[in-house]
């Protein structure tokens, strides 16, 4: 898989404060790339550099094989976290203006706008002013402005904030469709469940440094602890617990089940799952046996609190 965006040892300072410290990333073409990190980690600084809003102090950015340059703005669509449009300008005029700034001709912009307005069922808004729309409605307009010029690379900063669940779903489906159509999506958010749901790659930035990057499954494999959640129905619970604690680290677990089985989380260390199964089947009936996969949320919290 080729990369669409490479960030090479990018450094950004604001006075004495280092916002990005030799950050290196590579975003594969066609991926949905989750850019994670706590508040103030440097995500926005990085996104602004990719958007050429600010320049890096050192390092370079390669977009689709070329060094980042002014003409690239038309290949990128950006939805900033802090949304904003001209309050007193009419929706249609405003969208046309912003699309033309991205290099579309007026006719082409109009065609695209009609397509998107129909798609999101907002045709009636053309002559309304932004101040007459609700926040969620304005967000939709902003989304349209962001994708109108068919960018190869889309950068969404908290795209779902401000949307009700129905509209959030509409936007999610649109994002997935854009990916199908060949766009690459960089996705910056604090909502780990949407990362889990959408992203195939993630990177974690913390205190100006990149700590983790890779395919989401690789990262998870890297963070897995070889733990299993098991449910056992046993007549001799004490004997079972004795056997288990001799060999493994055992903790009580909590998961949903329909019977009264004993619920445990067992860390295997170097042992294999089959050995554990052997122990369990000798002492009772196994009702539940699942490898515990770390969630992105776990990984995030562990990484951030480790440092």
């Amino acid at each position, binding site marked *: 898989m080729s990369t669409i965006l490479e960030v090479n040892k990018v450094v950004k300072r604001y006075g004495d404060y280092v916002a990005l410290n030799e950050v290196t990333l590579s975003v594969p073409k066609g991926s949905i790339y989750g850019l994670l990190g706590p508040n103030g980690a440097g995500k926005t600084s990085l996104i602004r550099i990719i958007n050429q809003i600010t320049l890096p102090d050192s390092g370079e950015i390669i977009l689709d094989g070329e060094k980042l340059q002014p003409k690239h703005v038309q290949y990128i669509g*950006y939805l*900033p976290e802090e949304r904003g449009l001209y*309050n007193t300008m009419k929706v249609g005029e405003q969208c046309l*203006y*912003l699309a033309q*700034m*991205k290099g579309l001709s007026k006719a082409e912009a109009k065609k695209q706008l009609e397509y998107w307005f129909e798609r999101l069922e907002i045709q009636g808004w053309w002559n309304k002013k932004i101040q007459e729309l609700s926040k969620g409605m304005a967000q939709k307009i902003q989304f349209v402005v962001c994708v109108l010029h068919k960018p190869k690379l889309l950068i969404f900063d908290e795209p779902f904030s401000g949307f009700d669940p129905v509209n959030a779903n509409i936007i999610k489906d649109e994002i997935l469709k854009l990916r199908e159509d060949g766009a690459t999506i960089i996705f910056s958010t604090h909502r780990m469940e949407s990362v889990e749901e959408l992203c195939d790659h993630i990177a974690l930035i913390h205190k100006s440094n990149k700590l983790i990057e890779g395919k989401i499954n690789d990262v998870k494999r890297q963070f897995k602890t070889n733990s299993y959640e098991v449910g056992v129905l046993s007549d001799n619970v004490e004997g079972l617990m004795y056997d288990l604690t001799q060999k493994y680290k055992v903790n009580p677990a909590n998961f949903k089940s329909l019977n009264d089985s004993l619920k445990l989380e067992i860390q295997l260390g170097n042992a294999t799952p089959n050995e554990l199964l052997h122990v369990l089947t000798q002492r009772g009936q196994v009702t539940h046996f699942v490898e515990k996969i770390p969630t992105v949320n776990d990984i995030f919290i562990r990484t951030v609190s480790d440092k």
Partner: protein
Amino acid sequence: MSIVSLIIKREFITKVRNKSFIVMTFLSPLLFVALAAFVGYLGSMKADTKRIAIHDESGLFVKEFTAKNSKSAEYKYLDLSAIDLKFLKDSIANESFEGLLFIPKPTNPQDFENNIQFISNNSPSLSFIERAQSLIGTKLTKTNLINAKLDTIAINKAKANVNISLAKATGEETVKGLNEIKIGIGGAFGYLIMMFIIIYGNMVMRSVIEEKTSRIVEIIISSVKPFQLMIGKIVGTALAGLLQFFIWAIIGLSLLFAISMFFGVNVAPTAKISPEIMQAAQQEMAGTAQMYIKELWNLPIASILVAFVIYFIGGYFLYSSFYAAIGAAVDNQTDSQQFLLPVIMPLILSVYVGFFTVINDPHGTVAVVFSMIPLTSPIVMLMRIPFGVPLWQIAISVTLLFGTFFSVVWFAAKIYRIGILMYGKKPTWGELYKWLKY
């Protein structure tokens, strides 16, 4: 279409479509004329006739006053010398008359000078006191002359009355008020340019603050450079200002044209109907008016208008870069006050220099120097232009103005670039300086 012209177009259309722009453009000339007419009407309004009681013990002056009585006069003088002074003083309180002029009868005529009193509850108008003093003074002088046995007729004959008439070297006769016209025109244009700079500079600032607080600026500068956005904004707003000025200039010139037509053509036929004396008087009046209008046309109107446009563009560009930088540095308009003061100061200074120095001596050192300094030149030079300014001075002044603009815009752009992405606290001067180095 290039991106900058796209921004210019948007800024221009937003400004021009704004209701306040339309109202200001078409209503303010009307308002101006209406206000002038209103002030004129107020001035011509007759005040209530005021009754002044005169108690003249000498009997020397009272006739001078009562002779002035007429139906339309502002003051009506009553000769109440026969009535007891104390009674008169008391009746001021019940307001049967405005005041009491008390002239005692001194033993020595010299003592008149300081012994006359005007008694009233309200302080009298200065013009009334002056008039009374002059009436009494003239009469007293005359009396003194007669007492000294001097020939008053010979003295009157000896009095000379000089009236210098003005003419140009070309032989054309000019009107006396011409300098006042030049001062008025220069002052008006200088003042106009200050108003334009402040109004349109503020518009630029408001527009920057609006983009910043609505956060749209981040979207826009992901497509264009901050510098392009700033220049587009400044130029677009300037075009709106120029449009407004051209509309005013057209209205003003056509008014002037209409008035000259009125005096030039229409006066003669109406004059024929009038009686002979009236005709002469009216012709004289029309002649003066004609001459004034001719002088107005003789003023370098074209060069004043061209200079206005050039100096407005230069001055406005210079100041609006400050305004744009300030708008970028703050989050709302109230925070901008601290930074605006140093920007407005030179403008006010130039108006003062204009009204106090240029008017006295349009080509003196102070006037020339201030018409060169870029921050004051737009206003001061415009005030000088009706008096005729050598071309080389204008050339230097314009070059300096635009040169300064190009360096200031570079600094302003740096502050602007950083400022539009900074939210939260109001920056200090020190921080602004730091931004220049980012």
